[in-house]
């Protein structure tokens, strides 16, 4: 049964249905519907806990503590608040703890504004926190997908013992769309081999990210990167639209990919063979399909609500096989189909 819901609330509901009944967060616009929803729902669920943390720094560390016990936990914020979580995310990745972090991206740098942007791509995909680590990064384009990717994100986090970040533009969280929640959810992973539950009948477990000796640290980093390599092999997700015969291929994610689909349809009506590749996982990045399509395309256009961040990964994936152009808007402006078409026409 479909229900009409805001994107932010769909995330909260999907998390609860997926067995994630621990939420720690701090208010920031434009994601306040998530903590508000969780503060309403979780106290009514056995074992559920909601805490309004004192800071985003504390919130992500509460997630760290909760994740240690093997239970599912998540937090959400928006760009400036997510910056405060970077230390904690590095520790979560370093200690191989699963969790979900939602970033409803807003304008920046600095305090910026509360309008939607995609300028946190680098932070999410390239690191943001210190040290050698990766986050699995998911980018929904609809309220339905916000719910679906919340479930997937919690599952991938458990599967790989790694933090997962779901990034969406602030306006996607505010949009209301019909959403259908899954009937069944993945079975919880067995975490008894590492979780902290009190050392009853077993040796104590230890969760840490400190390795004093250079060789120990390097060995551990290699272990993490072997895991990341496996994720790159198996967890790439994307959607293609009319790319089979496309001369012009747009790469866009999130709300911009919805605009870009209209662009493809319009250009096709005008006789231009356009197509769209929509990354759903921003990391691991769908570089293989981009490389494959680049062999037959005239050019690529990366379209983002930033000054150009994902475009660097598109260029690395295309690797010189064809030109890669960029069109971006900032400050909270969503590119219109007409703008993108005009940009493409300058390259035709």
């Amino acid at each position, binding site marked *: 049964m479909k229900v009409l819901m805001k994107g932010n609330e769909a995330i909260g509901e999907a998390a609860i249905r997926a067995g994630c009944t621990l939420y720690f967060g701090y208010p920031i616009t434009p994601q306040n519907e998530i903590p508000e929803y969780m503060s309403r729902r979780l106290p009514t669920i056995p074992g559920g*806990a909601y805490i309004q943390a004192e800071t985003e*720094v504390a919130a992500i560390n509460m997630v760290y503590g909760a994740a240690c016990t093997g*239970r599912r936990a998540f937090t959400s914020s928006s760009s400036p608040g997510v910056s405060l979580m970077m230390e904690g995310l590095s520790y979560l990745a370093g200690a191989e703890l699963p969790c979900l972090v939602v970033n409803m991206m807003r304008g920046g740098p600095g305090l910026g504004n509360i309008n939607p942007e995609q300028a946190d791509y680098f932070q999410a995909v390239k690191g943001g926190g210190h040290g050698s680590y990766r986050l699995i990064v998911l980018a929904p384009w609809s309220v339905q997908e916000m719910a679906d990717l919340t479930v997937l994100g919690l599952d991938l986090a458990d599967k790989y013992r790694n933090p997962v970040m779901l990034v969406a533009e602030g306006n996607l969280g505010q949009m209301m769309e019909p959403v259908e929640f899954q009937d069944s959810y993945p079975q919880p992973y067995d975490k008894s081999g590492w979780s*902290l539950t*009190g050392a009853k009948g077993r040796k104590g477990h230890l969760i840490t990210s400190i390795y004093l000796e250079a060789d120990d640290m390097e060995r551990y980093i290699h272990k993490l990167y072997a895991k990341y390599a496996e994720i790159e092999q198996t967890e790439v997700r994307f959607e293609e639209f009319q790319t089979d015969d496309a001369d012009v291929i747009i790469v866009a994610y999130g709300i911009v990919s919805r605009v870009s689909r209209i662009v493809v349809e319009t250009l096709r009506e005008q006789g231009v063979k356009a197509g769209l590749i929509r990354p759903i996982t921003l990391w691991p990045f769908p570089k293989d399909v981009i490389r494959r399509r680049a062999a037959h395309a005239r050019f690529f256009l990366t379209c983002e609500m930033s000054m150009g961040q994902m475009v660097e990964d598109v260029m690395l994936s295309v690797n010189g096989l064809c030109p890669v152009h960029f069109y971006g808007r900032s400050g909270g402006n969503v590119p219109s189909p007409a703008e993108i078409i005009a940009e493409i026409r300058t390259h035709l």
Partner: protein
Amino acid sequence: MQKVFGRPTSLNDRPFHYCPGCGHGIVHRMVAESIDELLLADRTILISPVGCSVFAYWYFETDNVQAAHGRAPAVGTGLKRALPDSIVISYQGDGDLASSGMAEIVHAAARGENFTVVFINNAIYGMTGGQMAPTTLIGQTSSTSPYGRDPGFAGYPIHVSEMLATLKAPRYIERTALNNVVNLTRTKRAVRKALDLQAKGEGFTFVEVLSMCPTQWGVEPTESIEWLETRLMPEFPLGVFRDARPGEVT
């Protein structure tokens, strides 16, 4: 022959990495003894901080987690809310708790989180090499207050127990010291009482222990007790600052 004294079973036989004369080993033992006496070992999760006791987990035969600098009370909050039957001990030093983690400790106390904080106050950063701490005394020299802490630009030492005692939620707050047998006994009693209250679900418990750091104070271990008594204790009075049910005004 009857064995009348031994190592607590919650503590393993690994030699401590702490300097000669350091108080950490003494307090580790008191924590372990209390865990044993209250039969809490198989429910306990110990949080190691950042600082000299970053490797506290080397010694405790319990579940262990290492937390980011100052964040242990937030980690403890997550642990305890996820697993209310566990016994959570956040073991922290003065730089970790009173500087980097001041927000976390104040808010964990204000929420009345049902876990125990053992706060080692030796008025100096040990692990990083003897820098000024938030609890460093006026006039005390350190590697970052080489002319002595000047309140004109470095302010005054922070009295954490007194601060937290202004809150209504904490169940128990006491400051003790490691300077003599009487105070050692009081320290042990305070740690045990804190864990016992936690086990009974009574709320947030906090034991501040004035401890020796001869290495970074620049004194011999044998002189460090006198240093603690003549310098640290006058600034940080011992006593119970709060022993009341959450919400009660004392």
